[in-house]
């Protein structure tokens, strides 16, 4: 059974103006659909990656997975337990201890007034666990020194801070780690160190990652399965080899063509046209239809469902 099972997940944010403004200016309520009817499963000990541009809803899905946000509709099942609806506190607590998160900005996600030791053992201490020597052991596992436990976050570089974040995520011996753009704030050489570390730890601890990123090359390197998001909808899902060699959805094709290539010296490609539409008033039918070269009448009327095509899942009317 899959470790995580996400079914028909939808999240709607109310971004309306205050009541008085709406009445005076005669404005309707404004609802922003950040995530719309997304379903996927993450197998144990695999890396599932979500890619998409800004506003595609990838971080919102990550937050709903760890329980920082509740879903508007749909279900997030982790080991068969739906955190948003489960009422048994013990079960919820057991699942919560199995989930940890690594954030994008290692400068903002560590409390500057806490010592590294206290930061790392917090997930265990909060549940009243035994923490003696834990921080020192974890620091060595992520490639820092045990002596660093007594220091403060400002004494470390960006890459080292991200290692501390990883050590903290590992402290409660989780099964699932949600990584929201874990290397976007890092330089290339530091990114390589952190990605290698994450791969090693995954094998060592039998971890499962939900890896959220906008960087296609990083995703290709890390993921076992990739989901491509556009305007809150999952448009394609496939294994990396298949997705990169034979992208099926026109949006995925556009994304891959637009990504700069290391060997693309002086490459002249027609840049993609248009931009992501407004999520408050998404276009009817397929969200990609205004930019899509293949769009037909049906694409403007009917939203395509995600269906199986070979080893992939694609939401497009025009793919056979």
């Amino acid at each position, binding site marked *: 059974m899959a470790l995580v099972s996400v079914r028909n997940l939808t999240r709607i944010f109310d971004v309306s103006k205050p009541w008085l403004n709406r009445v005076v200016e005669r404005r309707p309520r404004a609802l922003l659909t950040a995530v719309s009817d997304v379903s996927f499963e993450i197998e144990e000990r695999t890396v599932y990656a979500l890619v998409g*541009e*800004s506003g595609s809803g990838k971080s919102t899905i990550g937050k709903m997975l760890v329980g920082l946000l509740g879903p508007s509709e749909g279900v997030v099942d982790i080991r068969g337990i739906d955190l948003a609806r489960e009422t048994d506190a013990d079960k919820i607590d057991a699942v919560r201890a199995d989930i940890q998160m690594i954030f994008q900005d290692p400068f903002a996600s560590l409390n500057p007034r806490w010592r590294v030791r206290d930061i790392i053992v917090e997930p265990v201490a909060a549940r009243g666990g035994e923490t003696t020597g834990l921080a020192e052991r974890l620091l060595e596992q992520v490639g820092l020194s045990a002596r660093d436990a007594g220091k403060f976050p400002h004494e470390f*570089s*960006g*890459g*080292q801070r991200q290692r501390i974040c990883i050590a903290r995520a590992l402290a409660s011996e989780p099964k699932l780690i949600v990584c929201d753009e874990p290397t976007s704030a890092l*330089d*290339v*050489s*530091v*990114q*390589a*160190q952190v*990605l*290698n570390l994450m*791969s090693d730890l995954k094998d060592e601890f039998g971890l499962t990652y939900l890896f959220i990123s*906008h960087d*296609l*090359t*990083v995703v*290709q*390197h*890390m993921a076992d399965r990739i989901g491509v998001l556009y305007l809150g909808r999952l448009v394609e899902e496939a294994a990396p080899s298949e997705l*990169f060699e034979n992208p099926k959805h026109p949006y995925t094709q*556009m*994304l891959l063509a*637009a*990504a*700069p*290539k*290391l*060997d*693309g*010296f*002086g*490459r*002249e*490609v027609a*840049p*993609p046209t248009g*931009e*992501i539409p407004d999520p408050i008033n998404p276009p009817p039918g397929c969200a990609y239809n205004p930019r899509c070269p293949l769009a037909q009448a049906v694409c403007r009327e009917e939203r395509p469902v995600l269906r199986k095509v070979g080893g992939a899942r694609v939401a497009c009317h025009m793919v056979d």
Partner: protein
Amino acid sequence: MPAPTLSIRDLTVDIPTRHGVLRPVSGVSYDIAPGEILGVVGESGAGKSMAGNAVIGLLSPPAHIASGEIHLNGTRIDGLKGDAMRRLRGKEIGMVFQDPLTSLNPLLKIGDQLSETMLAHLDISQSEARQRATAALDEVGIPGAAQRVDSYPHEFSGGMRQRVVIALALCAEPSLIIADEPTTALDVSVQAQIIALLKRLCRERGTAVMLITHDMGVLAEACDRVAVMYAGKLAELGPVRDVLSAPLHPYTDGLMGSTPLASRGKDRLHQIPGSMPRLDSLPTGCAFHPRCPRAAAQCRVDPGPAIEDGAGRAACFFPIDREAVA
């Protein structure tokens, strides 16, 4: 070869502090020809933005140019102060920053911002400036330019704002543009649009571009030549194809190795051990030697051969011998 638009010789920037003098840029020399895009690449703290700011005279005190010369179209500009520099900035050198929102005034319509720049530098009338502003927006691909001239920056998306900033940098027809991480804050598809736009405009107008970036992919696609910086010094300088596909300096090689690539599959990424040294504790000799797999005794005392223009690409005693490897 035509005379270079920008010529930097032995540029050194110093920051005096209580604990001694820091040197973020040290002995950097390069030229940019008209119509050429030179990529300046390096990790955070390599001094790539600092070198760009030195050219346009935007070093924030106490940082200052300690030695070296900067020539723009044959005129020396590194000693210019106050008004003289201000006339140059915007007129001869355009600047595109990373974050388009902070480089536009939120309280002014974008048409007024464009006209303001043109009126300051060109001898034209109000109405002509407005016409030109519309034309400039049209040229950078903003749909409905005639109406959008009267919009405020917040009414544009990130990609459109960056287009406005590029229009702003180009409106006085400068001979050099310094683009400091112009696409870092943008999405992949928008990034492709902006890079294509920069390339097209520079080719059409023969504008020289200094493109500061940390993205090797952008570098490969946009630039003609590339300068790799490490700890304030040039590590390697040469045509982009040579430097990226057959790097000579071990640092460039390490940088390329740590970039995830489709062809490498899921193997471990190459790691450069350690991290960039801090400016207040630079190693002696070649700054890269503590992390370098090829370092010898010589590297610990001697900073390595300087990069001469035209010949010699890497500032390294033991450059990777590509013929021996192949």
